[in-house]
């Protein structure tokens, strides 16, 4: 891992001062760091597939290490949330539209291709085979009626930021996700989308009339949510003595439910001993080895199960954050910056999909999935059972999953950057009751 230049994140004029001071410091001197950030690089204590590593193969190709079944593609060319990643957002690109006629048929299949956009993730088009389409972007079923110039449509797809600076549509051409020739085919296809539209055969086809998902019932019922059973299995871990001769139960008397009551409702929080913001998962990765000698690697099953057990002891209690503390306030501000930072090949920010202001995506369908709204609170039911994965996921794996299809190399699950984004998200949950483990698609 590269040395992290935390000072780069200090907002405003202090950036220059801090950078100059740090530049003048010899190695080993106390470095100037932003409040709430650890002074040295954070050494990840995550399972190998959750560390965000990139390895170089014998033939020189680079391959990202991710969870089993996830893509191995290396997105190292695109910027990430890492605080030591100073790369700016790629500037809007523009090229002349290649000559030659596009093929509407090819264009349609590109539009639907799940390995590219798919464009239908956000835009509805005509055809009963279009499933499931989303409505994050405008319905394009009658785009052809607008008679817009080809060049305009081409450039809108190549990089929409020329026309709409605050768009949430990725700059498909600028970052190389779509080739210029492909865009020519898509332009030709869009011109064929003309009204009048036939009557809609299935209300679920159109994301506007599609019913919203209703959930999976009582998340705390062990006959309904397998995650509850996993959490209960961590009671054995709570009592297991580690190499240091101690178990959790030896210091935290009264059983996990009594000893941990209310603790998780205060997380993520700034932990002075480690000089960073930590969620329960992060804290276990450092606290358990020190107290019991047992490693509890981030994204390992033991860590997840114990996290759920600890969080369940706070169920029903309101989430509270100590935002008056300067380190927490600074971390929250950084978390917010990250939330609005465009990253990855698609130049997306979290805010694009999870806020509503300015025609953003929250509460709309991305393909078949309803995008969660940050204001409803995204954190207080995590770790959560995912019915689509048949597994328990915590907030960090959810974040890592989110950014992989967006074309960003993930950070380590216990990275400070993620912890501070999680802190920002949790701020929307303040006052709302904890409810762990959740159950979601």
């Amino acid at each position: 891992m590269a040395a992290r230049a935390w000072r780069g994140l200090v907002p405003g004029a202090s950036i220059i001062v801090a950078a100059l001071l740090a530049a003048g410091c010899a190695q080993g001197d106390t470095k100037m760091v932003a409040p709430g950030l650890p002074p040295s690089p954070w050494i990840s204590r995550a399972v190998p597939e959750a560390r965000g590593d990139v390895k170089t193969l014998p033939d020189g190709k680079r391959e990202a290490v991710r969870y089993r079944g996830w893509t191995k593609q290396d997105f190292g060319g695109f910027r990430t949330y890492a605080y030591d990643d100073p790369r700016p957002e790629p500037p809007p690109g523009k090229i002349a539209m290649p000559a030659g006629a596009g093929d509407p048929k090819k264009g349609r299949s590109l539009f639907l291709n799940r390995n590219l956009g798919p464009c239908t993730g956000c835009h509805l088009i005509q055809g009963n085979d279009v499933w499931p389409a989303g409505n994050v972007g405008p319905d394009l079923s009658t785009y052809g009626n607008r008679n817009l110039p080809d060049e305009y449509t081409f450039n809108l797809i190549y990089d929409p930021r020329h026309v709409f600076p605050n768009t949430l549509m990725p700059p498909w051409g600028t970052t190389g996700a779509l080739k210029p020739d492909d865009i020519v085919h898509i332009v030709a296809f869009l011109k064929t989308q003309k009204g009048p539209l036939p009557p809609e055969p299935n209300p679920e086809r159109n994301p506007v009339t599609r019913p919203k998902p209703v959930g999976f019932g009582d998340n705390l019922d062990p006959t309904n949510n397998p995650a509850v059973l996993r959490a209960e299995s961590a009671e054995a871990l709570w009592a297991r003595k580690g190499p240091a001769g101690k178990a959790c139960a030896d210091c935290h008397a009264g059983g996990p439910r009594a000893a941990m009551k209310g603790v998780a409702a205060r997380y993520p929080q700034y932990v002075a001993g480690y000089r960073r913001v930590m969620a329960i998962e992060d804290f276990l990765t450092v606290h358990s080895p020190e107290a019991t000698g047992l490693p509890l690697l981030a994204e390992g099953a033991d860590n997840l199960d114990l996290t759920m057990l600890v969080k369940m002891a706070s169920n029903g209690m309101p989430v509270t954050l100590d935002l008056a503390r300067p380190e927490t306030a600074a971390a929250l501000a950084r978390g917010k910056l990250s939330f609005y930072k465009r990253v990855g090949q698609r130049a997306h920010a979290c805010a694009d999909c999870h806020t509503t202001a300015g025609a953003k995506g929250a509460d709309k369908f991305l393909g078949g999935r309803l995008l969660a709204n940050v204001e409803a609170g995204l954190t207080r039911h995590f770790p959560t059972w995912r019915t689509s994965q048949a597994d328990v996921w915590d907030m960090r794996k959810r974040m890592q999953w989110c950014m992989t299809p967006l074309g960003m190399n993930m950070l380590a699950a216990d990275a400070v950057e993620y912890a501070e984004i999680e802190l920002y998200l949790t701020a929307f949950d303040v006052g709302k009751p904890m409810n762990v483990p959740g159950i979601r698609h």
Partner: protein
Amino acid sequence: MADIGRVRIRIPSSIKPGDIVKARVLVIHPMEIVERKDGKPVDKNYHFINRVIVTYLGKEIAQFETSQSISENPFFSFSFKATEPGQLKVTFLDTHGGKYEGTADVKFA
């Protein structure tokens, strides 16, 4: 998983006489699956639940024969007609002689 044999039964909280009621039952059990060595199944006394007996008001109302194809911590759900208040009992028997019982009280609101 801890608590082998712990049975949990969930029935609706408000039941009227004559209602068809759905019971949800979960038991903690490893439900050992077939091991293979050199492509052949290992012959041994596998540990799994092979019989489930449901009694209501002291009478047996259902019996299920189960096999290793069922997942660990198996979950069963079935419907029955709640005629009178009383006890619903679910008994799980396994291949190692284990007997695990859970009960729920059918009460009319």
